[in-house]
């Protein structure tokens, strides 16, 4: 738990630093003319920047490759990603159509580049009766909200699970009426009572991660199944790993 919190705190701090860095860049831009008036430095070449996305249109849940090239820039930031190298690529899985905005700053000033990625969100079926209707089906849900797995006797969100959480949060943000049941599971080693408490802690870790990623806590419900319900019953590492998970399902 502590590690989980810490990792998310770290993430938040990085994001904050990135924001500060972006702000600092803006201030620097306004300060530059004051310097030039006093020291008359050699004229600096204004930076140039290009930003492309491939593809420029995706289905929800797919990813795009962002590619940028700059010249005469010393600091490059992309909104939502943060500080990046002056030239580089990055993948992104936006949950809605997004304008990616790049700012390149150099001694000669700053410039911007933009690319729009269109996200095709699946058609929402219109049910004739009242109720949560912006869901398509379980398959779509499970494709986008994937179970997360845990290390032995641990309730810490692993790096691979963090990716799943990000994707799940994006999907849930796009489907605001979906409610989620998070089931906590343990492998069959250890004691039944303790494993129920540990399963609870795992499910809560997944819940906390989704809340941190912007999903309202009121949409998330946690039930621990401990080792009472198993995905497989073999006594080997592969099966034990299958059973150490937080499972997401639509809470109806």
């Amino acid at each position, binding site marked *: 738990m502590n590690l989980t919190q810490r990792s998310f705190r770290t993430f938040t701090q990085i994001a904050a630093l990135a924001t500060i860095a972006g702000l600092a860049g803006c201030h620097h831009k306004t300060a530059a003319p004051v310097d030039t008036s006093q020291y008359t430095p050699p004229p600096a070449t204004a930076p140039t920047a290009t930003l492309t996305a491939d593809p420029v249109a995706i289905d929800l849940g797919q990813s795009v490759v962002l590619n940028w090239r700059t010249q005469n820039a010393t600091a490059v930031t992309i909104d939502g990603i943060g500080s990046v190298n002056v030239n580089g690529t990055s993948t992104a899985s936006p949950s809605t159509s997004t304008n990616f905005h790049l700012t390149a700053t150099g001694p000669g000033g700053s410039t911007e580049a933009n690319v729009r990625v269109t996200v095709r969100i699946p058609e929402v079926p219109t049910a004739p009766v009242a109720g949560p209707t912006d869901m398509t089906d379980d398959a779509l849900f499970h494709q986008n909200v994937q179970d997360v797995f845990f290390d032995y006797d641990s309730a810490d969100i692993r790096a691979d699970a963090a990716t799943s959480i990000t994707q799940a949060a994006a999907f849930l943000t796009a489907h605001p009426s979906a409610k989620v049941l998070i089931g906590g599971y343990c492998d069959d080693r250890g*004691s039944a*009572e303790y494993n129920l*408490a540990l399963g*609870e802690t795992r499910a*809560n870790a997944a819940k906390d991660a989704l809340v941190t990623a912007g999903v309202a806590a009121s949409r998330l419900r946690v039930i621990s199944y401990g080792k009472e319900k198993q995905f497989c019953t073999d006594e080997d590492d592969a099966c034990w790993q299958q059973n150490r998970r937080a499972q997401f399902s639509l809470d109806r």
Partner: protein
Amino acid sequence: MTLHTPARRQWPLLAALALLALATALPRTARAQDDDHVFTSTSTGVDRIRIAAAGFKPLATDATTTGYKHLFDNTLYSDLNSAGIFDLVSQSLAPMATPGTPAEMVVAQWSAAPANAAMVAFGSLNVTGGNVVVNGWLYDTKNTVDPKVLGQQYSEPASDEDTRHIAHEFADEIILRLGGGLPGIAETHIFYVSAHGGNKEIWEMDYDGQSAHQITHLDTITLSPRISPDGNRLAFASLGHDGWNIRVFSMLLGRMVSFPAIGGTNLSPAWSSDGRSIAFSSSRSGDPEIYIGDEAGNNLRRVTAYRGPDVSPVWNPRTNSQIAWISGRTGLPQLYIMDSDGTNVQRMTDGGYATSPSWSPNGQFLAFAWDRKYGPGAPGGQDIYVMEIATKRWIQLTHDTGGRCDFPSWSPDGRHIVFESDSGKSSDIWTMLADGTGRHKLTVGGTSTMPNWSWK
């Protein structure tokens, strides 16, 4: 010096256990090694009393009467044999005689070799007016002037269950007389979880595994049965649509009674020995913590506040002022004790994976399940241990059972411990004496877990 150090370290505890059990003798092999240690006559434990159980005399020869007679004989023999305080004369060494009355009793037959009995139980059984009527006596063979220790008459409806019950009552009378004043446990019950078709329900059986019958019919997963001290209410944790809640079944009314659902995952209820409080684990605040409420589940107060699973509380039944429980606050689950207001937290185990505490009736010991070498790739033997709370010294009670042992529960006389042994594919309930001897299986079928011994 013949004993190696770990064994030496465990000896005082073994001696204390022997004291606790009064006449529960230490294993013979262990006593034989006892060259270089000084023990008082009390700390070595009293020799087991050699007792014979004569076949009871049927007062009719019909199949019904003889059937009840054999059931009675077998039950009485089994009760005395498993009591832990007797050296029971094997049936092959007992005289052929079946004295039905004191007049028919020839004490010398039983005191002489090969029986060499110091005590003999005998009597008669009859079926009259739809009742099984048993007259039973206990004679002291060394007292030729007035050998009668006990004379009892029982009459109960003619059924297998009632016949077994008469034998249990008579056995408990004998054990009360000869066992240092501690009541026997032959009339006690064991509550446990039985799995059928994906569901788990609570069942009850006699202490010897007989008369098993289903208590709950909730059609879900129900765990951690805990019978109240008066035997009237059964608390457990049950999985509903909204998760795990503590629920209570009235043994008197034969139905569920209300217990508040407070939200979160609620597990592992525990009655205080005065029946006025229930401790349990609840995640209503988001993290599994120990809560204490009154017997109706009201007036809740939280007594732990530390990140990580806190579960499986048990009260010190002597004082109700302390609670032992399991916490994963430092990683793997460890055994802790605290005052029941949450102060004076003490960690009891120094590592491994410790779960499922049970506090001994005299307040001195904790039985628990422990895997001292827990971890990936470790052989992972989970066994039952007993720790003396004052010194934190422990002894291991189970060895090489071929399964993970868990959920120990003390008998009300403190001489026995019932537990679960799980091979991974099947699980059954076993019982043993509190020194680890006399281990035998109570259930068959491989679906039984989480035993809880009744208070009386």
